[in-house]
């Protein structure tokens, strides 16, 4: 019988202070971390491998066998399946970025207990990256409409929501490693993986998708360990009062960066891609984020000096509207996406009014007009409902339309001779803290301003195998699908809204 306590003690005694060569500081951190803390979970590599092998066998085994034979994916609700084309490439980068985050943490954090947790997470993240790519390919093979699944990892590069996802998840590993851990482990994993990998599977299952729950729930069984990593990292940081001023600033920023993308995006996925309707995102948000993450976790850290994120109340007020507004942009700009959309039915609209009182007054008109613009024979794009494509936030890359278009908090300011849009004062503040961190890229409009929409679609590979039908469609009708000729006939020019601002 193995002496486990002794085994754990000894595997944590590998570190030594190098005396021949001093390792350069590759990932500078402003935090001081104690050399010894509590082990977030006691796993030896041997135990870890055996546990993960069993989980892999269960998940891949079920996908390869019963689910494939039952043609589970082709029988799921098409409305739901379409949004998985967008979800998986975004999530996949989150996992990949997390793997890089743990590499930085292993390198930087001189604490054997924490390193032990990070090493298992590093391999977990490769697991999740592989699982989600495997699921994407599985859907390419088995879903009723494979277009979009087959190209999603390529098309995410120029897609407005996938780009915003990448912006949110680059925070995991571009910067101070502890700031990365706050973004990844404390906010994204602890606050948001429960709604995404647990609660969202209820929506998937009730809409006939039995495959996604197999993968997501298997992923979530690892996430609970990552939450423990986050807690242990945070506890280590908090244990030194010198860390607290920087911690609060980084934590505030981490919360906002994750909220600014994840909440509007997941709310759209949740509320607008269910056919067999269950709960609303807003309900789940109150349960998982407000009560669970804030109420049972973050608020309890107050005695140790960590406060609820500065803009949390603003986020809470925004949440009931974010998904509807993001959905309006996503549906309205459907030709720029790589999945199909299903217009809301009267039943859907009743559900929205029930779950979000006042919804119809703000959004009902858009959906009526949208429904009239789905048929290519009408020759009118839903984009024509808007004066232009929206400005995109310099920091979070999301459209500057939130919380609702009529009360948008969009602001535009000049910096170093260029105009920059911000979705909120929170993103503007983040920019003001360190502007140079957000100026290293070309904006969407710098690349595509002045493009005819048809040219954008062709250049970015948004056509189906026949070379003329769009991958994206505003409805699920397969008789009347938009072609590149239909788009060209509309003559829609992509214009930088800041040109006229």
């Amino acid at each position, binding site marked *: 019988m193995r002496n486990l306590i002794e085994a754990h003690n000894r595997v944590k005694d590998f570190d*030594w202070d190098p005396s021949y060569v001093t390792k350069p500081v590759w990932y500078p951190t402003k935090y001081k971390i104690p050399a010894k803390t509590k082990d977030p979970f006691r796993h030896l590599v041997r135990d870890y491998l055996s546990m993960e092998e069993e989980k892999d066998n269960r998940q891949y085994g079920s996908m390869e066998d019963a689910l494939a034979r039952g043609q589970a994916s082709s029988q799921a609700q098409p409305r739901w399946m379409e949004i998985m084309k967008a979800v998986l490439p975004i999530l996949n980068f989150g996992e990949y970025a997390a793997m890089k985050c743990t590499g930085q943490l292993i390198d930087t954090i001189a604490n054997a207990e924490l390193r032990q947790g990070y090493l298992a997470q590093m391999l977990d993240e490769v697991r999740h990256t592989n699982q989600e790519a495997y699921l994407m390919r599985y859907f390419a093979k088995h879903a009723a409409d494979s277009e979009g699944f087959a190209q999603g990892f390529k098309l995410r590069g120029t897609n407005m929501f996938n780009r915003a996802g990448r912006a949110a998840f680059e925070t995991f590993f571009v910067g101070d490693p502890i700031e990365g851990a706050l973004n990844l482990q404390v906010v994204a994993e602890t606050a948001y993986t429960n709604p995404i990998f647990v609660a969202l599977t209820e929506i998937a299952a009730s809409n006939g998708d039995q495959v996604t729950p197999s993968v997501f729930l298997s992923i979530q069984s690892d996430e609970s360990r990552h939450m423990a990593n986050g807690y242990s990292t945070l506890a280590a940081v908090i244990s030194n009062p010198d860390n607290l001023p920087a911690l609060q600033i980084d934590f505030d920023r981490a919360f906002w960066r994750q909220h600014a993308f994840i909440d509007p995006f997941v709310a759209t996925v949740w509320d607008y891609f269910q056919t067999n309707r269950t709960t609303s995102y807003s309900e789940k948000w109150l349960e998982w984020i407000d009560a669970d993450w804030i109420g049972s976790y973050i608020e309890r850290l107050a005695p140790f000096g960590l406060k609820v994120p500065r803009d949390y109340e603003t986020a809470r007020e925004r949440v009931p509207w974010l998904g509807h507004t993001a959905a309006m942009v996503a549906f309205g700009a459907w030709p720029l996406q790589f999945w199909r959309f299903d217009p809301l039915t009267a039943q859907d609209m009743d559900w929205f009014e029930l779950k979000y009182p006042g919804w119809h007054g703000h959004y009902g008109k858009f959906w009526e007009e949208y429904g009239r613009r789905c048929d290519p024979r009408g020759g009118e794009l839903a984009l024509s409902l808007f004066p232009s494509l929206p400005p995109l936030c310099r920091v979070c890359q999301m459209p500057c339309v939130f919380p609702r278009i009529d009360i948008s908090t969009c602001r535009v300011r000049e910096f170093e001779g260029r105009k920059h849009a911000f979705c909120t004062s929170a993103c503007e503040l983040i920019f003001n803290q360190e502007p140079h961190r957000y100026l290293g890229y070309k904006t969407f409009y710098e690349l595509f301003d002045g493009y005819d929409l048809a040219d954008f679609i062709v250049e970015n590979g948004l056509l189906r195998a026949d070379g003329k039908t769009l991958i994206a469609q505003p409805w699920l009708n397969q008789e009347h699908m938009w072609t590149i000729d239909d788009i060209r006939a509309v003559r829609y020019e992509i214009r930088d809204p800041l040109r006229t601002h």
Partner: protein
Amino acid sequence: MSTVASPPRDFTYIKPRKRRLSEYEAVTCYTQPDPNVFDRQGWYLLTPEGRAAWRPESTRLQHPHWYDFRDPSGTWQRSYVKLQAEQERAIERTVEDAALAGVLRDIDPVWLREIIGIHYRVWSFFEYGLFRAFSRAQREALADTLGNALCFEAVDRIRHAQSTVLYLLELESNVEGFKDDGAKEHWMTAPAYQPLRLLVESLMATSDWAELAFAVNLIIDPITTEIGVSRLVRLHGPHHNDPITPAIILTTERDRRRNLAWTEELVRMTAAPGAAHAEENRVVMLNWIARWTPMANAAARGFAPLFDRFAPGARSFGDELAAASITQSALIDSLGLMRVGGK
């Protein structure tokens, strides 16, 4: 009416190495974004110091498209975990059976104390240092196929290190008087191991991820690990009534073969005749050979007294080192690195 002819039923954006897209390629390729591939806008965030997510200068090697790299073993997480879980189970069973059969008690006590308790245990610190170095290297690699190979090697190394600790715990439980103590002190102060510690501290301070893989898998493992582990411990264990440690070492040699193969592939991709920047890359690699080979040899020479004591009658230490060096040189030679133009 629009019709959709033959919709794609597999990923369309990956060029398969063989005729059909492999599972490994499908779940690995292009999971890392790149502004020169599909992500035209660039990086949305820079560090406070102004660096981006990935930097071409993270290695001195050059290649126009790092995503062309394929690990010849086609390892992805599932196959990796399956293999290593099997290897760990094999070790656990072997040690358990050996304990029950009394094999552990029969091991030569001097060998057990000095080679297994000190020398082999010291090796776990070396492996741990490599785990640290490879964990960081995976962060920086310029394509997913490379980052994952480096990540798996990092986990190989921590597996080896932890496996040694667990084995010695079993020995403590089964062999009266055996204690796993003193190895760390040897690691830190014993003259025999200081070149080895210098070597791994130098590797841990190496920023170039390709240099790390090149140095460890093409120079250090074939010389230093070959001498210090394979030739000394694996080959001579049975002469000291120790058939168990060699069985454990065989699992690490399986990992070594995989890591050697992918590193050879990296060399071929960057330095084969006709490859872009082949000559510049070859010169970079020659510098790496010049830098790391003397250090690998010096670390191996630290083990010479152990050969004299524990490998009597067999080949001398000098012959062993010469043989390892010849094999390693042949390896380098087979990759064409010693010839101008790689031919």
